[in-house]
């Protein structure tokens, strides 16, 4: 089983819908420890991405990811724009020219994206950021692939690890971003970026894993 370009397009639309559905929830999380714009910013950015999809609908997966990355960078703003934008731009480097991705290729693609986020944001595991959700998701995906799991099984395990990583941000003290200014007061709140990342991996598992 592989991930087709059409499945990638379908996922991006599902991701945009899921973020819009959870817009107020993301904003509420962000108002507790940030600047209360994560829901609005991500909704605006993904909406712009979906509007841009028809122009790349007949291109390779790398072109789709690159178009999404550039759109996110120019429409989201704040810290999330460059971080999610970098994720997609780096995912484009490993999916360039491909019309479908095997599980192994998706592992490499997600890894390239996450490495881009690490370089751009200079966050470490435990800093209370999206990395705390994405890194465990990648580890779970890799482990599942190495153990010979099916695509849908591997994506499910990856999404579950991402959600667990999101939940694990609650007790953490933020060391990056605007939440870090709160110091100890940031503990007890779930990180908004880790939350939107978990939504991303959840929609991937739902859309790519259903066939």
């Amino acid at each position, binding site marked *: 089983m592989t991930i087709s370009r059409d499945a990638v397009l379908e996922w991006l639309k599902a991701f945009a819908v899921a973020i819009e559905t959870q817009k107020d929830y993301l904003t509420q999380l962000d108002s507790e420890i940030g600047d209360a714009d994560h829901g609005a910013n991500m909704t605006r950015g993904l909406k712009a991405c979906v509007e841009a999809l028809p122009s790349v609908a007949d291109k390779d997966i790398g072109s789709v990811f690159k178009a999404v990355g550039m759109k996110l*960078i120019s429409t989201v*703003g704040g810290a999330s724009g460059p971080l999610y934008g970098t994720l997609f731009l780096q995912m484009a480097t490993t999916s360039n020219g491909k019309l479908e991705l095997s599980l192994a290729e998706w592992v490499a693609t997600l890894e390239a994206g996450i490495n881009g986020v690490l370089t751009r944001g200079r966050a470490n595991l435990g800093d209370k950021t999206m990395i705390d959700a994405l890194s465990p998701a990648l580890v779970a995906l890799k482990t599942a692939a190495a153990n010979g799991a099916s695509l849908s099984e591997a994506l499910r395990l990856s999404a579950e690890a991402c959600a667990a990583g999101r939940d694990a941000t609650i007790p953490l*003290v933020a060391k990056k971003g605007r939440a870090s200014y709160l110091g100890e007061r940031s503990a007890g709140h779930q990180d908004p970026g880790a939350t939107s990342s978990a939504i991303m991996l959840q929609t991937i598992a739902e859309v790519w894993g259903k066939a």
Partner: protein
Amino acid sequence: MKKLINNPENVVRESLEGVADAHADILRVNYDPNFVVRTDAPVRGKVGVISGGGSGHEPMHGGFVGFGMLDAACPGAVFTSPTPDQMLEATKAVNGGAGVLHIVKNYTGDVLNFEMAADLARAEGIEVEAVVTNDDVAVQDSLYTAGRRGVGVTVLAEKITGAAAEQRRSLKEVAEVCRKVNAQGRSMGMALTSCTVPHAGKPTFELPEDEMEIGIGIHGEPGRKRMKIASASEIAEMLTKPIIEDLPFKSGDEVLVFMNGMGGTPLIELYLMYNEVNKILSGHGIKATRRLIGSYITSLEMAGCSVTLVKLDDELTRLWDAPVKTPALRWGI
């Protein structure tokens, strides 16, 4: 919410249209992506100096575009960082062949967006340097936070750096001047009232009638402490003492004093506060040799003030005195 607006969505755009018409002799405004740029840009052989940040801090940064200061400024949505496509286009518009300096306030969003823009500009063959300002002593600087915020020093750095660029110094030298201003400058602010972001529609934070927030950020971020309102001389002490101790400023130092209003505080109070700060400085043997008093880095309609001190030497003093012609700062021309 009571504001002079038509629709919260259009505040930035409609304000930019006003700026473009009012100051057409100095600047023009590019839309989509939004940036304010000198009419004579790119100036051949001169380092281009650009800055940017969320809107709502006017006149910073657009009001500082013009001869002797910024070549371009990129306004984001209110209190939201601008995006790399804005900085990239502004960088291209001001590149006169000598490279472009980005002056960035230390906020995670601003830093990340400017870094991406610098990467994109370098990929197009433009030499770019960036200086991140981080002068706010209210935030503890440590490895465990995003670091000190960039506030009042940014205004002074833009003026002094712009003057250095006007002298046709190299990109490396211009960046060095900017770093020096940041290294020798410290700030601290306070709020008497909150501010209301147009698209939020309600005050960013609640502050009871008889309380104030010491160490406030320029987006209404929490400060060091909330306490009962005090006299101007006591507030001046609370703001100035941590600044003096931090650098530290010493007896015999000559300083530029920047008494800034947050947007909702009248000039009569700013001059009164300046006088209080000056008394404290005199008590420490520190001499104010240059001053800037007024609302230049604001938080919408927030009432309150910030104090910035920059230690001066002959070079910085000369660059501060150099001619400037922008909508908000103008002298020597």
